[in-house]
């Protein structure tokens, strides 16, 4: 695999993913409306009930809406990762996955390209949401927009790799709805996306430990700190480690020795 060849393949996969995304306008609106409903309705309702004390990276009291913005960005990325996973299962069912897997490129590289394409689309959605959040009066430092980019890319890779791993384990499109329920909701609610972990620690120690062990919590914290120009080193290490583990699992899952291609008669 030469460098120009690798780059052409990467550009081709990115281009296809972007084309598909632009053609699915409903997907873009759903990706934005979902967190906006949480931000403008749910957070407004809980603002009075939930007080957020001063915790890093914040240096003053903040509103609940401000607190959940990084969590909602994580939500966008989580849904996008699952959407990429669904798209892989769909491609496999429709047969177009074979075109990808029979190209003269190493399988790990093809999966990396798919991840990069998913991350690209995911980051675009995150920035669209951040701009809308600022327009609705959420105070975010503009410099944080640029500082958050590496964190957004890294967390998009982690959640994309998680989605790829799941797609390698799903044999049929019909099974996907169950996975969405059993994966997305626990991942999202057992995290620091909606409430600071110290509040969870006060409420239930076991749940707190589950939240603290959840890589999604660390993705959210990585983004939260980056938005305020700070680095959460623990979150960075956990997100990088989880990306490596999920990515390796996906490569194994798409190994032909495990019989990815469903048995067909002929």
């Amino acid at each position, binding site marked *: 695999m030469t460098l120009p060849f690798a780059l052409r393949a990467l550009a081709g996969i990115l281009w296809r993913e972007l084309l598909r995304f632009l053609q699915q306008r409903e997907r873009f609106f759903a990706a934005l409306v979902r967190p906006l409903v949480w931000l403008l309705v749910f957070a407004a309702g809980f603002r009075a009930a939930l007080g957020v004390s001063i915790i890093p990276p914040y240096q003053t009291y903040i509103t609940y809406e401000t607190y959940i913005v990084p969590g909602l960005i994580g939500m966008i990325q989580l849904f996008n990762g699952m959407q990429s996973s669904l798209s892989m299962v769909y491609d496999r069912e429709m047969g177009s996955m074979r075109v990808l897997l029979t190209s003269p490129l190493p399988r790990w590289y093809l999966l990396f390209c798919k991840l990069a394409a998913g991350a690209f689309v995911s980051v675009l959605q995150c920035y669209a949401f951040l701009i809308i959040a600022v327009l609705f009066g959420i105070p975010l430092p503009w410099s944080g927009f640029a500082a958050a980019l590496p964190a957004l890319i890294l967390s998009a890779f982690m959640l994309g790799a998680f989605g790829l791993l799941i797609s390698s384990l799903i044999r049929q499109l019909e099974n996907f709805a169950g996975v969405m329920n059993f994966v997305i909701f626990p991942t999202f609610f057992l995290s620091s996306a909606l409430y600071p972990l110290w509040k969870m620690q006060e409420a239930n120690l076991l749940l707190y430990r589950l939240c603290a062990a959840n890589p999604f919590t660390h993705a959210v914290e990585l983004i939260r700190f980056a938005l305020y120009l700070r680095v959460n080193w623990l979150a960075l290490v956990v997100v990088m480690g989880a990306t490596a583990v999920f990515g390796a699992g996906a490569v194994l899952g798409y190994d032909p020795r495990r019989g*990815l291609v469903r048995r*067909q008669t002929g």
Partner: protein
Amino acid sequence: MTAANPATDPAPVLAFRKVGYGYGARAALSDVSFDVPPGRVTLLLGPNGAGKTTLFSLACRLLALQTGDISLLGASTARSGSEVLRPLGIVFQQTTLDLDLSVHQNLRYFAALHGLTRAEADQRMEAELERIGMAGRIGEQVRALNGGHRRRVEIARALLTEPRLLLLDEPTVGLDQPTRRTLVAYLHQLARERGIALLWATHLFDEAEPGDAVVVISNGQVRAAGSFEAVISANGGTNLEDAFARLTREPANEPAGAAP
């Protein structure tokens, strides 16, 4: 067992040697050996469930070999890197085009996966679509095309990389008779005029022409291999259909359905 005569024919483009494959305890292929000669059509004839698709999936590495070896232009597909697939063009049984993209977008995506520049890709797709009578449909969404047109686009796509070998898994299934005849003639022309080797899985005898190589497979085993004429005469038939019926007849005491 060879479809070509090794004494007179040049080195095979694709060679199967004692290939075996099973889905769990169930054997799909057993001791399959034959060669695909260059510049010629090799028909892989077999009833449904004979193991043709499994054989194709092994040749293009969608499945991993369990026993035996497959070599493509002399390189073992199992022991080589992914580059080994470069001389290969594939038309799968199931449509593999992205229905939501246009013909042009589908072909450009494929070209990128095979390392072609945009200029090369555009030039070749124009030529291939022109040859197969689809140049005027290049901007259309694939979803709007009928089955025959989709199949033509897939053949044009497989030829974009100028392959030495084209694998075709039942490419005419589901097509009407005139479309089928046109495609069969076009594919034979590819072998004659462009020197491409074709391995063509089918269960339709009328797709074979005199001069083709024929491999008959049934229950995961090669029953006969040789030239079109040799397979007919060696099995006491007057035509390929007779020979095929004799070769694939189930012995009364053999359990049916041992292959997928």
